[in-house]
Each structure stands twice: as C-alpha cells, then as structure tokens.
C-alpha cells in the first residue's frame, strides 16, 4: 500500500515535471486554446490530461465540444457520453449531447420499455457516482446518529422520535445504497459503445463472410452483449442485433 502510494506519487511528480503544470492549469490552458479557436491544440491538450490519468465531467464535456466543433460527431458523442457517466444531470451536457445525436445519420427509435425501467434510469441519471456516495454516507450518518440518540435517550418521547427518524433515514440510506450499487455496476460494466467507423456493415454472425444484417454509421450508441475474438455482438435501442468488428466502435 505504501509502496503503491510512493510509486503513484513519483509518477505524479514525474508527469508534473514533464508538463510543469498541475492538471487544473493544463485544463485552463486547454480552455484558452479552445477559446482562441485552436481546436486541434485544445484537443491535444485535453487528451494529455486524460492520458495522465485524470478525468472529470467537465474535461470530457469540453473535449466533446472540441470534437463537435471539428465535425467529428462520433467522438463528440463518445466524450459526452463519458461525461454523462460522471455528471449525468448536467444541463449543458444533455443539451449538447442531444444536438450531437441529431447530427448522426442513423435514427434509432427505442422500443417502448416498462415504465419502471425508465424511472430507474431517470433516478440513476439524477446522481453522479460521487454525489450518491456522499448522499448515502450522510444518510448513513443520520441513521447511525438517530440510533445513537435513541439508545442514549432517557425519556420515552425522545427515544420514540429518534427511532422514527432513524427508520426514515435508514430507508433512505437503503435506497441510496441501491442507486449506488446500480451506478457502480453500470460504471464498471463498460458495455456501451459508440460506433466510430464512418460506415460499418453488421453481420449476422462473427465472420466477415457472413450475410449482412444492417448498416450503421458513426455516432450510434450500441449495447455490447457478447464478444468473440475481434467481433462484438451489439444490440441497438430498437432491438436490432448484429455482429461488428471491435475496432469499429469505442467503448464509453
């Protein structure tokens, strides 16, 4: 543990030496490049921060904007989607992602789902992982605090009130825990991807000689359901299923 920390610190120090600026400074610098209209330089600057192992919703968002402005809609969608995992409820982000999705060629009409799943997704989108972590923590704190109060309380009235509050905060804590687990599993799953190739033909089986299933253009969001060697099986929001080459898409 200590060794790891030391190595991490050394690496951090090294990268700081190499770029002689903190990630926040690098971020500000990249923002300046963007404002000056130097899109390629700004893109490189943002990518450098990412390559150094840093990430944030704002970073992905800004990088998405750079790609959008340079006309690479697929990359813009990819970065907006990555940003969405970190800051799912950011208004600007959702707006830009919607615009980018209007620019892509394929229109995928999602099949109607059970309303409860939409609710769940809405709840999941309302919290970032960090936020739900802290929310769950404070609910936990409240739960424990009320229980402590209930234990220490001398009067019957006080104890009853504490237990009631403790139960409410406990229920909220459990709900937050569910959302947290859901967020964790989605952020660890890495099963959504954006099609990067300008055009790719999906096959009915993982084989280039197989018959063509349908054609996708860059920027479409797909769900990865299976993979064989260099092929991934994907599912579209409207339920279409096909195999495509792994290199044609980039995982969010």
């Amino acid at each position: 543990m200590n060794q790891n920390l030391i190595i991490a610190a050394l690496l951090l120090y090294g990268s700081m030496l190499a770029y002689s600026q903190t990630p926040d400074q690098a971020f500000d610098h990249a923002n300046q490049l963007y404002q000056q209209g130097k899109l390629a330089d700004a893109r490189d600057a943002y990518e450098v921060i990412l390559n150094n192992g840093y990430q944030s919703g704002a970073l992905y968002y800004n990088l998405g904007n750079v790609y959008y402005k340079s006309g690479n809609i697929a990359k813009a969608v990819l970065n907006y989607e990555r940003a969405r995992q970190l800051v799912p409820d950011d208004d600007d982000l959702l707006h830009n992602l919607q615009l980018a999705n209007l620019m892509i060629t394929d229109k995928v009409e999602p099949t109607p789902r059970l309303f409860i799943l939409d609710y769940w997704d809405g709840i999941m989108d309302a919290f970032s992982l960090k936020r739900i972590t802290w929310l769950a923590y404070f609910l936990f704190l409240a739960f424990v605090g009320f229980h402590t109060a209930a234990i220490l309380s001398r009067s019957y009235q006080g104890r009853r009130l504490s237990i009631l509050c403790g139960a409410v905060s406990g229920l909220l804590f459990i709900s937050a825990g569910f959302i947290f687990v859901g967020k964790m599993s989605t952020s660890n799953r890495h099963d959504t991807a954006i099609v990067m190739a300008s055009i790719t033909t999906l096959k009915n089986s993982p084989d280039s000689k197989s018959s063509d299933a349908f054609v996708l253009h860059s920027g479409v969001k797909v769900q990865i359901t299976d993979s064989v060697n260099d092929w991934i099986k994907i599912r579209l929001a409207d339920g279409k299923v096909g195999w495509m080459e792994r290199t044609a898409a980039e995982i969010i």
Partner: protein
Amino acid sequence: MGRRTVSIVLLVFLAAISLKAQDATFEASVDRNPVGMGEQFTLSLTLGNGGMGGGKNLQLPDLSKFHIMAGPNQSTSMQIINGAVSSSLTYSYVLQPKEMGKLTIGAASIEAGGKKYTTAPLTIEVVKGSPRPKQQANVPDDLNVQIGENLFLKAVVDKSHVMQGEQINLTFKIYTRVSIANYAVNKNPALTGFWGEDTENPKNIALTNETINGKQYRVGVIKRMALFPTQSGTLEISPMELQTVVQVQSRRSADPFDSFFSNPFGQNVNYMVKSEPLKIKVDPLPAGAPSGFKGAVGRFTMNTVVDKKSTRTNEPISLKVNIAGTGNIKLLESPEVDLPTDFEQYTPKVSDNINREEGRISGTKTFEYLLIPRYPGRKVIKPVMFSYFDVAKRDYVTLRSSEIEVTVEQGTAQATPLIAGGAREDIQLLSQDIRFIKVSSGTLSRKGEYVHTSGTFIALLLLPLGCLAGAFVYARRRRSVMMDEIGYRNRKAIKLAQKGLREADVLLKGATPANDQQSSKQKLQFYAEISRALWKYLCDKLNISQADLSIDGTLAMISQRSANTELTASLKSLLESCEMARFAPTSLEVATMRKTYEDAKRLIVELEQTLNTK
C-alpha cells in the same frame, strides 16, 4: 239392283277371305347405315300380310342406346297385283344414337293371326359425327372441295425438339394452285409457353414454285416467327386461320380450273384455310445452373463501363452493363451488381436494340445503374456476373467483368440524411449551437478512483459506527445498573449518608453554647439530620422500607449479617441518643453534639465496611 249389289259385296268378301292363305312377314330396317354421331335415322318395323286385324302385342327391342325422337308412326298399304293381294303395316321410329361404335338393335316381336313373328337383329354403325361442312354463302359443296384440294396453309418449324429458351423458327406458308385475290389473318396462332418475335414479315409475298405429289404449287410465306420456349414439356402451336378470297370462273364453264387465268372475270369465293397444329418438345435446361443464372439462353458477351472513376460524395456515377449476342435477348433480366453498402442504388434503366435479320434474334441490351456514393473513400464494386446457357456448347457460361474501383472524395453537398430528421423541433435545434465549455475543471480525479474506496471515506464510515458501538455499550451498562435498584441504593447509601452528615456538620459549626430558643432549634435540626442520614443509610443498605423501621428490628438485621456486637451496641446507643435528643433538646451541649457527630461518621464507615464485606 239390290240383289246384284249384295252379290258383288259378297264376292269381294270371299276374295278377301281367300287372301288369308298368304304367310305373314315381320322385318326391321333402317333408312341409312352407317350413321353419323348426332344424326337421326328412321327405324321401320314392317309387318307384311299381317291380315286386316294388324299386329297385336308389338314388343320393341331394347333401344336404350338411342334417343327416341319420334314415333311410333303407323302406316298401312295394300296392293292387289294379279289378284294377289298384299298388305303391310309399318311402325316407324325416329332414333338418334347416344354413342359411337357398332350398336345392335335387338329383335322386335309382334303377334299376327295367332302367330308370333320376330325380326332379325340389326347392327348400326355409328361413326364420328361429321356435321356437314357449313356451306359458304353461294358456294356449292363441290366447289369448296375443289378449292380445298388446291389451296392449303402449312406451319413449318426448323426444329421440333429443343432446349428451353432455344430459338425455333416458325414459318407459315400458303400453298396454292388457285388465284388468290386477297387474304387476311383471321386468327393468329396462340403461342402458349413461348415468347414469340416476328421476323422479316414481307409486305409483298414473293411466290416460289414447289412440287408436292406431282402437283406444282405456288408457295408464299405468310408469316415468319422466332419462338423461344419459356417452359419445358410438350408445347402446342395452335393453328393459324387465314381468310382468303379465291377467284373462280363462272360455273357455266366446262372446267373452271383450266381457265382461271384466262378469264379474269371470275367469281370471288371466300375460303378459310387453316394450318395443322404443331407439337414442340421442349427439354428443360440441365441442372447445375450458376447462382446468377436468370434464364438467358444463347450466346452473349458483356461489357461494363463506369462513366467516371472518381467522384465526390452525393454525386452520382453511372454504371452501364452492356449485353450483346444472339438468343432470347428480350427476356434478359438485369444482372446483380454487388455494391459497397454505402452506395445508394436505383433500379436500372433498361434499353434494348433487337436485330431480326437472317431469322436470328440478336441485339444488345443495356442496363444503366445510377449509383450515388454517400461516404468518401476508395470503393470497390465487385465484378458484375452474368450467366447464360450456351446452346451450342450445351453448357452454362458465366461472364464476369473486372473489378471496378471508384475513388470518392468528400463533396461539399450536404448529405440528405442530415435533413432527414425532418421534424420541426429538430430543425430549430439544429440552428442552435452547442453550449460553451466548462471553465471550472470540476475537480479532476484520477481515473478508476472512487470516493468510497479511499481510506478517508472508510475511516469516516467507521467513525459513526464506533460512536454507535460506544453509545450502545454505555447505554447497556447504564441500563443494567438501573435494573439493579437495590445495588444502586446500596452503593449510593454511603454517599447520601455522608451528605446528610455534612449538613449536620454545618449545623454543628453554627451551634452556639447559648441556651436559647434559636440554638435549641438548631440542635434539634442537627439531631434530626444525623438521625435521618443514619436511617436513610440503613434503609438503603439493608433494603428495607422506612415504614418498617424500628431500632430493634434494624439492629437484629445487622447482627444477622455481622457478629460485631460492639458495633451494634454503639449503633444502638447512637440511635437512642438521637431519639432522646429530639424529645429533650435543651439538655444538649455542643460537646455532646460533636461526639454524636463523630460517632455517626465513624459508625457509618464501619457499617459500610462490615455490610459490604458480607
């Protein structure tokens, strides 16, 4: 007169009676034999010399194979020849046969003069009905027959056994030895199962001479066709009918046919000629057709051309596939063009040019494909494949063009899909721009680093748990203490007692030797305090209620728990002195009070030690 008349009549009767001597006959006959199917004939059953009474009990033969159209009709006749009188009675039936072949009419019988006569069975031959040829208006039968012998239409094919899709040449020729003024096609042959194409149909018929069975005919070609069977099996070419106008000489002429040409003022006769139906045997194409085969039979060449090798996105290219050769060129279907998937393709424009010379159908067919590339890049159109069946080689041939490579550059024209969203809201949104970048970095974190796995977070998580645990332990201890009230009182007893004694001490220090009302009240209070502290202590320590208190009882309980009699004795004297003091306060002095106080203090400590050790 009367007598003579009677005698003549008698004579006649006598004569008539004398005729009876002749034998009767019964015969069956038909008016014609053989009979055409559907024709009517008459069956006559004739009784000869049957006598004046005629026949009785006529039994008809079995006529179930005939329709009885009319009858029986009876007719009688009588002849007297040289004095010999013969008479006959005839029953006649009009019959129509129901079926073809040889039909037998069985024996009929009749009774005459007490005797029974039967006919011999008859056999009728029914032949296929030949309804008499419809007579042409104003044309006598014999003239028709005469023309028929000298004018006929013949259908000729060059092959009667072909492969499916192979060309057959069909020719209709008219053979004539009569003069034809005009003709018109009444009915064209029905070509079921063929695709037919007229070839070189001359406006003017050139006549040639041909000799058949020693007769010289003049021959003219009416119609030439190229046929391509589109299905296999035995196919029939139905007859062609031709309405002709034949010039014949007047009937008054001795021999009309000798002088046809010498007499132009002949009679015009309508005559219909008809060819014989033809049967063509068509073999199916052999198995093993290539996948791209679509029924082309003949011999073809193919050539593909692209109008430009490089283009921009959304600018169309035209791909022309040109198929030339002989065969069923009109039936050719467009060959499949395997395009890269991002090309938009439209149905090809087809044009053909067919040459009918020399009785062979040849020509070219052009398929023009319009291709619109939607995305830039180097695109390869796979070779165009065209398969046909070569009749001469009796095998399938596949033609393939070379691969076509097209370079597509990014064009300036916007691709249509961008507008395809179409909805009004979409367009409004498109006119907006994306929002500005975030100026704040939003706390950059290391990738894969989560709040909940950091040490601080875990410590923060454990902290309240520790507090909870502490509180729990504390509450539990407190609770167990509260549950044990006796022990609580026991432990608290000494503290309370000492507290009471301290109050007594305060009173003692405030006491003065003066013997007045004020000091006596203070003394009283002092003793009350001492007494209360002691009693309270004893109650708590011994767990008895204050209501049950008595000096003796209490001392007994103490002596039960401790053998120290000196202690009980001093406790008793102390308690008693307190009682005494409360009832006679005036005699008290400060020194006594001090001693009482000291005693109480000492006793409590001793009691505490004694009772606790127990």
